[in-house]
């Protein structure tokens, strides 16, 4: 019988709740209270998440965020700033000693990205993993990923772009010229794509989630069983939301 992991479909939440929830599951799993978990979610309102080490004001156009009603949050994972709007976000929380997880950090990125790529493939999109943390199709980025490890537990979360308004994206993100210096395509707006753009048709969040579920099941040879948050996870989510992710001293600390 295949190993069973928990699947959480938490629909759309604020940036603060989304990040709090990932951290709550990370804590619960590290204490052995819940099984390895794959979660699919979206963001309402639209939001920017920045990497743990990034400077908020260097990365985010705060005035335009206010004007457009876009939230912003600092992640507990490193990596870059991401504008979350029409996308499916996944997270996977699993002990780092799990036999399905390569010991090597970069290889573990590749393995988890493999699940996302299988999901994309199920949707009819061929993609490629570009280390450290990108998945591209037709030379353009369709998914960004970031991982942390705490208390011997992995949390990796990442985006799968369903649709993208690049003008809005780059009105709320500040992209320094240096970042694109060694890239082939100079115009940042040309460097991202989405499922809708590749398939040239509308696709529902729910359908992307279903194919991603299969992608994770195939890559890890497990069965994902839809479940819910424990009471303790719900309490932890509220606590992390209030005390950390929606707090100014967390988001503005750099």
């Amino acid at each position, binding site marked *: 019988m295949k190993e069973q992991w928990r699947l959480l479909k938490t629909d759309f939440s604020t940036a603060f709740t989304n990040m709090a929830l990932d951290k709550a599951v990370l804590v619960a799993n590290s204490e052995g209270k819940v099984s390895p978990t794959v979660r699919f979610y979206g963001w309402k309102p639209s939001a920017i998440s920045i990497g743990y*080490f990034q*400077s908020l004001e260097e990365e985010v156009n705060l005035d335009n965020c206010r004007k457009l009603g876009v939230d912003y949050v600092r992640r507990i994972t490193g990596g*870059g700033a991401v504008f979350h709007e029409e996308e499916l976000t996944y997270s996977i929380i699993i002990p780092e000693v799990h036999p399905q997880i390569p010991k090597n950090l*970069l290889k573990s990125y590749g393995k988890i990205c493999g699940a996302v790529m299988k999901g994309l493939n199920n949707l009819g999109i061929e993609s490629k993993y570009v280390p450290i943390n990108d998945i591209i199709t037709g030379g353009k980025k369709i998914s960004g990923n*970031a991982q942390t*490890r705490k208390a011997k537990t992995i949390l990796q979360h990442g985006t799968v772009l369903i649709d993208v308004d690049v003008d809005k994206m780059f009105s709320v993100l500040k992209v320094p010229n240096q970042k694109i210096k060694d890239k082939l395509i100079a115009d940042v707006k040309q460097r991202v794509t989405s499922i809708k753009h590749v398939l040239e048709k509308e696709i529902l969040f729910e359908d992307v989630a279903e194919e991603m579920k299969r992608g994770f099941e195939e890559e890890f040879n497990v069965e994902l069983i839809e479940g819910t948050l424990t009471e303790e996870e719900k309490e932890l989510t509220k606590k992390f939301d209030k005390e950390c992710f929606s707090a100014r001293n967390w988001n503005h600390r*750099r």
Partner: protein
Amino acid sequence: MQSKSIYKIPNGKLLNISLDYDEINNSINEIKIMGDFFAYPEESIELMENELKNTILEKVSLFEKINSIIRVHSINFIGLNAERLTEGILMCKK
């Protein structure tokens, strides 16, 4: 003296240094190491920033200091390394 540098590391990530340094002693007063790199454990970056205070802004000694901090705290960088971090910090002086 306040200074900043932005350094796109070849085959790596973007490093963003904000430095306050003592021009007479050529040493670090305050430093922030920012960017879209990865470091494990994440909290070690704040330890590094603290331990770099008063370090002389000279290539060899700065590189050795950074390396010793990496060893002591078992820091694992992805998209950044001690050599590039040293370069990024010293760029603030140019």
